[in-house]
């Protein structure tokens, strides 16, 4: 019992990634426990999205391992990788809805592709997912007709359609008003609790992070320089971490 539950949901070991001459990840070591909200914070353009893409296999590291539930996904072929991905849900920064499909069709997409359910069952699940993100009855709308916040919520409904065990959120609250941000953060917590999913969140919103996270990891200059629960992080002594957490323009982190 203990062995299976303690196994990290996701692990990065000594991951290096460069794009041309630009080194983005320089030896990232990360252990994300299952069934918890894990938040990765860091500077804009610091490599957080790149890190997230490694977890889902959209990028392959130049060196190092990426383990999902104990399995190294770097060496997997497309077919096996597809199998691993079916256990994931991902919310992209701009929601990445298919703009030629309606809201309903977007949320139904993973169900249609990966489950053999009849139309009625699919409709039930889609309506339930839309209701859980507060968009009941909006299935007929097209993505272009929605506000940014609504699109994100549809994206979340789609990410959760198959009740995945691991859900990735790429800056879920960026560009949203405080009320909408709070609603999305509640949803993340509910995803963890109701669906028993491991949540990996990339965020700039320190306040929300402190409220919702179980574990926080700070990515700085290609490495994880701080990790722990919100209490530990808020007391972290490294001036880089302190400057970031308290949102100060002056400090070791330069705004160039």
């Amino acid at each position, binding site marked *: 019992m203990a062995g299976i539950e303690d196994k990290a949901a996701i692990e990065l070991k000594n991951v290096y990634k460069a794009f041309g001459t630009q080194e983005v990840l320089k030896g990232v070591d990360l252990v994300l426990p299952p069934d918890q909200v894990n938040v990765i914070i860091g500077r804009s353009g610091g490599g957080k999205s790149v890190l997230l*893409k490694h977890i*889902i296999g*959209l990028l392959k590291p130049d060196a190092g391992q990426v383990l999902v539930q104990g399995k190294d996904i770097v060496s997997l072929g*497309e077919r096996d990788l*597809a*199998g691993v*991905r*079916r256990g*994931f849900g*991902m919310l*992209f*920064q*701009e929601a*990445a*809805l*298919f*703009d030629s499909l309606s809201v309903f069709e977007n949320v139904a*997409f*993973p169900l249609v*592709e*990966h489950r053999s359910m009849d139309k009625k069952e699919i409709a039930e699940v889609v309506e339930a997912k839309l209701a859980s993100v507060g968009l009941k009855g909006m299935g007929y709308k097209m993505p272009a007709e929605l506000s940014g916040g609504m699109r994100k919520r549809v994206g979340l409904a789609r990410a959760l359609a198959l009740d995945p065990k691991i859900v990735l959120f790429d800056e879920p609250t960026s560009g949203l008003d405080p009320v909408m941000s709070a609603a999305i953060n509640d949803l993340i917590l509910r995803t963890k609790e109701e669906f028993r999913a491991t949540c990996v969140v990339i965020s700039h919103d320190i306040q929300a992070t402190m409220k919702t996270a179980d574990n926080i990891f700070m990515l700085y200059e290609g490495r994880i320089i701080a990790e722990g629960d919100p209490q530990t992080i808020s007391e972290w002594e490294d001036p880089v971490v302190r400057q970031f957490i308290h949102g100060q323009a002056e400090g070791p982190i330069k705004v160039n």
Partner: protein
Amino acid sequence: MDFAAEMGQIMLLFLSAAYWLLRPPYRWRLFLRQMEFIGFHSIFVVSLTGLFTGMVLALQTYYAFSMFSAETLVGATVALSMTRELGPVITALMVTGRAGSSIAAELGTMRVTEQVDALTVMAISPVQYLVVPRILAAIVVLPLLTAISDFIGVVGGYVVGVKLLGINSAMFMNKIYEFLEVEDILNGLTKAAVFGLLLALIGCYKGFYTSGGAEGVGRATTQAVVLASVLILMSDYVMTAIMF
């Protein structure tokens, strides 16, 4: 990226598409939708260009042939030119401008808004979902459009030659039957299928590998049309040399 490297990448996309074509699930609905978009919605444009091509061809050849009192050959000339060359090439260029650019723009936009990544993340091959239906539809539909263009071009040539320029109708038609062979038509349609493959493949390639936001999409669209058009004309020469 230099030319050779780009040709290599295009070839890789083609092989990937061929692989995914054979693997289920087979996306019939997407295929049919692309047939409608690339084919059905191009009928008007293709008919119009075919018509005027045939008409101007009749006009030009009439003046040349009348110097040798060979006006009756105008019909055959139009028919042979349309079926062997102008039908396939001009149809392909028109469809490239219309559908080829649209394919690049649509896939390019999907790429920069992360919709392509979203497909991958949901364990769906973007090549199978986006590229294969388009390429297959283009290969099937271009010969059909070309056939329409050929036919209307000859009709246009008839209208100009017989009705406007007074060539004897019976002689006009007889010469066509005498000189036009099934081979001419079939070779032209084969060319059309190859052109269809090229325009869809390059549209998909440029769209798929777009980067750089809205400007990138615009650039991809232009490059797709230019590259496809050039390759269509180049391959036209090669195929003509082999076939005729």
